């Protein structure tokens, strides 16, 4: 079943074309990687799916719904920067999610917090960058949303925490949903991806099933990435 359908999506800021003719389909139960260097349009694309940015061309449907405030109920989005108020405690952040997201799974959130070694009374402004990332990820993964979007979930965290985050992502993943992840750290995320899209200068350069691509090119995704982006 198609959970996300993107057809010829484009985004232009004045004269700058950030995305152009992006087509993408995500089936239910898949973890999809959106890979590309800085400035390739990954974050812009994810924000379009989250309903924070409107495309200037094309069509986006999530569970057959066009993007609107209603699709925000279907999407759990982890941005690539801090988004919680500094005065909040973890308990207060959890209360906000419970208040507004009917699909927020309290038990899963508590388990994720335990796993991440965070406690409810911790204040957001006392957390390190890595801990903030873990908290934001726990809030996002605790939702039983149809589409989970993670923008650079491994950014700014140490290798041990990266491993922990990847385990948490796999633990929280449900087959009724789909996940779209961006990352620069291809080696780290490679093992969890079912499908990949390589985005270059706002256009899909290469896409396919991760295993098929590896077999076809006899390379790891990281090597394919280096080949596509010539680095």
């Amino acid at each position, binding site marked *: 079943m198609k959970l996300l359908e993107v057809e010829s999506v484009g985004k232009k800021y004045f004269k700058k074309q950030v995305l152009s003719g992006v087509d993408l389909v995500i089936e239910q139960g898949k973890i999809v990687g959106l890979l590309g260097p800085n400035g390739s349009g990954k974050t812009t694309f994810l*924000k379009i799916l*989250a*309903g*924070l*940015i*409107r495309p200037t061309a094309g069509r986006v449907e999530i569970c057959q719904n066009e993007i609107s405030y*209603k699709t925000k109920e279907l999407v759990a*989005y982890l941005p690539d920067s801090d988004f919680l*108020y500094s005065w909040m405690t973890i308990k207060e952040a959890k209360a906000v999610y419970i208040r*507004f997201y009917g699909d927020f799974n309290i038990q899963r959130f508590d388990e994720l917090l335990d796993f991440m070694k965070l406690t409810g009374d911790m204040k957001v402004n006392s957390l390190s960058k890595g801990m903030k990332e873990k908290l934001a990820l726990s809030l996002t993964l605790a939702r039983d949303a149809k589409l989970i979007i993670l923008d650079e979930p491994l950014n700014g965290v140490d290798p041990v925490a990266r491993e922990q985050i990847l385990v948490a992502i796999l633990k929280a993943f449900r087959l009724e949903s789909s996940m779209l992840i961006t990352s620069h750290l291809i080696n780290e995320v490679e093992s969890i991806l079912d499908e990949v899209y390589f985005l270059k200068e706002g256009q899909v350069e290469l896409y396919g099933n991760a295993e098929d691509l590896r077999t076809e090119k006899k390379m790891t995704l990281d090597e394919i990435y280096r080949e596509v982006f010539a680095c």
Partner: protein
Amino acid sequence: MLVKLLGYELYKKWKMSRYILGGFIVLQVILLIVTSVFLGTDATKMITEIGNNGQNGSFTFGVITILYFVFAAGVFSFPFIETINRFEKDLSGKQAVLELMIPIISWKKILAKLIVAVVTTVVFQMIAAFSVLAYILVNSDFNKKILDSIVDIVQTLMATPVKSLFATLSFLFFLASLYMLIMFCIAFSKSISHKNRIAVPIGIGMFIACFALAIVAVIQIGRFPIVEFGLFGIERSLSEMIFNLLAFILPFLGASYLMEKRIEN
């Protein structure tokens, strides 16, 4: 959902203003104690006898009074500044993602912010007014003349309850319209750019233009009223009432549209 939003907005407002409010109350109490305990008679004379100069402690009393009124003015204006600042940050600050991802239609978000802004403004203004009143009463040693004038004002208001209620509602509606216009101008500027050096002048320019337009409209409506009538002892016209409604509804619809369809983060 509107109730949930109201609870959330009130909670945010409380978290952001509790230290300011607490600090103000503590300062006011300290200043009140200093003047009434240490300057007692001098303070009373200064308040009850106009033109009383050269008393012992009059300089200290003057400084404390100025401080007291400056703090009161701060509390009076704090909700305006906080509301404008918060709305701007909710649209384009770090927390904008949290705000904009809430799966509720924008007009409800704006309505909740507006209701909470009006309620907080009224509460803060009442606190500031009561603190000033308390200062005058305590330092005048509860002077009978001052007490009588307060009682007179209360009695006048009580004698015409419908008129007083109408006046209060008119004030609240004016406050809501003013906030709505400010919110619309912020939303308009943020729909053009998130960069403050571009958005701020656009927002301010837009506000001045809208305000000037509203003044011109009010003057013209006053000159050429349509269907005049008396309402609770106040002369009104249908054209004026329609204008007041439009002055609220148009910015409200405009800000909701911009937040839903134009503002990106």
